[in-house]
């Protein structure tokens, strides 16, 4: 995104240096160095982007979804570009929780940043089993339970579009861990606040939203769907207005902290999500567009606070003026 040509009015630049903004936020019992996290599936386990950004400056790394057994994911093509967005139907390809612990987690061992593992399952029991296995790993700071993946046939989003299954998954995971538990909600619902309340009642420590919107694209020349699996998840700037609205609705509906995401590309986008009620934010598709996005968003957020004389970034949470 180009630098906003909106110039800062004279006299509005406070004398406080950048260093004086308190960027820490509390999330589900964790103290994060910054509210800027990574969105699951868009940062792998951090290693690839370590060449572009300092992982230690992230609020948290949220890993790609992990299931009990290896999943092959969906057929190719798995992505399609759409106006200001993209569709993906990766389908939670992963090597299973054992390999995950052995390889990815081990590799993150030396990095001083909270690692939140994104957990998938085909069944309620599988979610719980993945978490049970991860409980043995000291390197795990918490869980993000993905009940909202639109790209798998069983499980995934099916758990996220009804209160009863959403509550059941939350309960099953809660029963096996006392670590911070974030539940990731699906936007493909009539009333997301209702689902948020259901998972809150079952002991979630936080909710994150939004996962991708279910979408589709067809190539008129071949008449075939652009994704082998026909439908996929829409992410990127295109969905930001929907994501922001849902964050605002959920933040009003529950007492839990909210992790906001969906099309965040700049610090100002992150500010919007925090004003709408997010305690922290996650950067997803933007990483593909610019591998330094997490840093750019963090810096932009800090600069915004400096410019507006906000001493603690957490003061932005829910501070929309209505």
């Amino acid at each position: 995104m180009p630098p906003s040509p909106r110039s800062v009015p004279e006299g509005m630049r406070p004398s406080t240096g950048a260093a004086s903004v308190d960027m820490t936020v509390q999330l589900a019992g964790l103290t994060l160095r910054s509210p800027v996290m990574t969105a699951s599936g868009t940062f792998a386990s951090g290693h690839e982007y370590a060449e572009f950004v300092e992982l230690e400056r992230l609020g948290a790394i949220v890993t790609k979804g992990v299931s009990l057994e290896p999943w092959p994911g969906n057929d190719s093509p798995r992505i399609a570009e759409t106006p200001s967005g993209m569709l993906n139907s990766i389908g939670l390809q992963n090597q299973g929780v054992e390999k995950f612990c052995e390889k990815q987690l081990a590799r993150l061992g030396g990095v001083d940043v909270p690692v939140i593992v994104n957990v998938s399952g085909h069944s309620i029991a599988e979610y719980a089993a993945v978490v049970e296995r991860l409980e043995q790993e000291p390197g795990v700071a918490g869980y993000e339970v993905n009940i909202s993946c639109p790209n798998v046939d069983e499980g995934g989003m099916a758990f996220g579009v009804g209160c009863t299954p959403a509550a059941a998954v939350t309960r099953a995971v809660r029963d096996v861990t006392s670590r911070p538990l974030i539940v990731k909600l699906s936007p493909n619902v009539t009333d997301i606040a209702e689902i948020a309340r259901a998972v809150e009642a079952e002991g979630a420590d936080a909710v994150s939203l939004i996962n991708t919107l279910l979408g589709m694209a067809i190539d008129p020349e071949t008449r075939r769907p652009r994704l082998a699996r026909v439908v996929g998840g829409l992410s990127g700037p295109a969905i930001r207005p929907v994501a922001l609205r849902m964050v605002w609705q959920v933040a009003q509906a529950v007492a839990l902290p909210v992790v906001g995401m969906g099309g965040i590309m700049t610090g100002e986008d992150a500010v919007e999500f925090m004003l709408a009620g997010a305690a922290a934010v996650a950067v997803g598709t933007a990483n593909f567009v610019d591998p330094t996005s997490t840093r750019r968003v963090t810096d932009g957020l800090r600069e915004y606070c400096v410019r507006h004389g906000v001493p603690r970034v957490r003061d932005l949470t829910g501070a929309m003026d209505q």
Partner: protein
Amino acid sequence: MRTKPERAHPVLERVAVVANDRVTEGVGLLRLRAPRIAATVHSGQFIHLRIAVGADFILRRPFAVHRRDGDVIEVLYRVAGRGTHDLETKRTGQEMDAIGPLGRGWEPGEVSSALLVAGGIGAAPLGMLAEDLAARGVAVSVALGAPSGERLVARGLFERVARRVGVVTEDGSEGETGLVTLLTARWLEQETFDVICACGPEGMARAVAEQARFARVPCLVSLERLMACGVGVCLSCVVSTTHGLKKACKHGPVFDAEEVVWDASESPQRA
């Protein structure tokens, strides 16, 4: 067979257009000042280019490094859609950002002869390879195929460095008439090569791989996949191999033809 050269870490570099010239109908040659990428790139690697900022298409586009010339890298591109259309309009001095060098390029190992096979714009990733091999004294043969004479690219470069260049066009407007495999079949009958390196439409690459197998010549193919991240994160670019799914952006784009499980539906050219 493959030796593994030390691969440098990719960097994010602000690159400046030095020249952008039309080569033939729908094909352009972009010269980019990119000292950091140029410093470490191997033949067959690619860059992930952010063509436009603030456009309604947001993803980067992958392009092979066609040649390296000091600080400058060259990209040979075919206008295929929105991104490459915008690329065509870039003028000298304009800047973009590029991630590179990315992926695993041609790693033919110690060879004394090599057959390079290019279909259309598939010549792009073979340019630097031909130059490097020739500089190492390898006897390079190049088989160039295209639908028609106007779609032949990089012929001049190959003629400069290769021992032999053969041309085949589907409409016969230049060289022999037919598919490039006509020529490679003949050459493979007549002589032996230490390695074959092929790039082009997936059907062509596959056919060449079969000929190579039959002739018992090791074969490397550069494959294309739709790519979001380009750095091994998003899993959009997977290639089916005998060792399971591999990422074209990280384990490829060059694969040992023997390990590829050919599946036409994975190729973006299915469209």
